[in-house]
């Protein structure tokens, strides 16, 4: 199967490949599609992706599934489950993932402008109450912010 056969995965610039192919879980598939489409629409974010040097994992608390994104120089691979030693792990519900991906990020992904909105303050509140957990937020802050910039659907 060629990259172009994989729905939603960027076919140029900075592709996201599913390591498990057709056996990818729903979360991995959605992340690959979202990230690939975002980088196609906003190619300036490719530089942000290249600066994420450690894996980032997402655990969907509603569906009890996880996926890990390993970023490289020319593309990324999305794995089922937790792979390697992610520096950042986001543990969130579907609604929280939806909220986080609508936060505007600026300054090469390091300026979280979207946190200063009603939705952003809600996300921060969820983090403060440990309902939304971002492991590595304090120790790998840049990676966490860059990842939010990559999944953000906001220009």
């Amino acid at each position: 199967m060629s990259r172009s056969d994989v729905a939603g995965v960027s076919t140029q610039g900075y592709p996201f490949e599913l390591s498990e192919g057709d056996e990818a879980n729903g979360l991995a598939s959605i992340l690959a599609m979202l990230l690939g489409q975002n980088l196609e629409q906003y190619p300036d974010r490719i530089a942000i992706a290249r600066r994420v040097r450690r894996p980032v994992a997402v655990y969907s608390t509603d569906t009890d599934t996880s996926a890990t994104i390993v970023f490289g120089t020319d593309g990324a691979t999305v794995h089922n489950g937790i792979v390697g030693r992610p520096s950042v792990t986001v543990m969130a519900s579907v609604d929280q993932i939806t909220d986080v991906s609508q936060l505007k990020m600026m300054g090469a992904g390091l300026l979280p402008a979207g946190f200063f909105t009603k939705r952003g303050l809600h996300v921060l509140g969820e983090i403060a109450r440990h309902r939304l957990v971002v492991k590595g937020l304090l120790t790998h802050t840049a990676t966490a912010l860059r990842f939010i910039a990559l999944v953000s659907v906001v220009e």
Partner: protein
Amino acid sequence: MAEEFKFFSPEWCEAAIPVVNSHEATIQGFKDASTFSHRMAFTCAERGLVTHMEWKEGKVAEWSGPQYDESDLWLIIDAGLATWQAAASGASEGGKLLLAGKIKFKKGPMSAAIENAGAFNNFLSSWGMVPTDWDV
């Protein structure tokens, strides 16, 4: 007892239009209903069922069997019968079914699903108000 329509049949689609268009939670769930004008397909490939619909400014203008070229479709969304039934009954939300891999985006921007997640979830649950014969 109200007549039941075979799921995703032309008659079911026709019956679903007024249900969806009067479903306030769906309309309120759009990021901007006034600009939501798109053609899309909802399918149940495992049963060979394909429907095409057209939204105009947040309202369903048409919904029936296949009628548009695939290139005209903004979204193509597929799921198994049990998944559609679960979404219609409200047992599971569309967003959760999507992340669980039960509902699949075959074509279209994920950003649309994210920005209109509220409308998507409520749109699917409104199907539960359509008298449906799920034996297809």
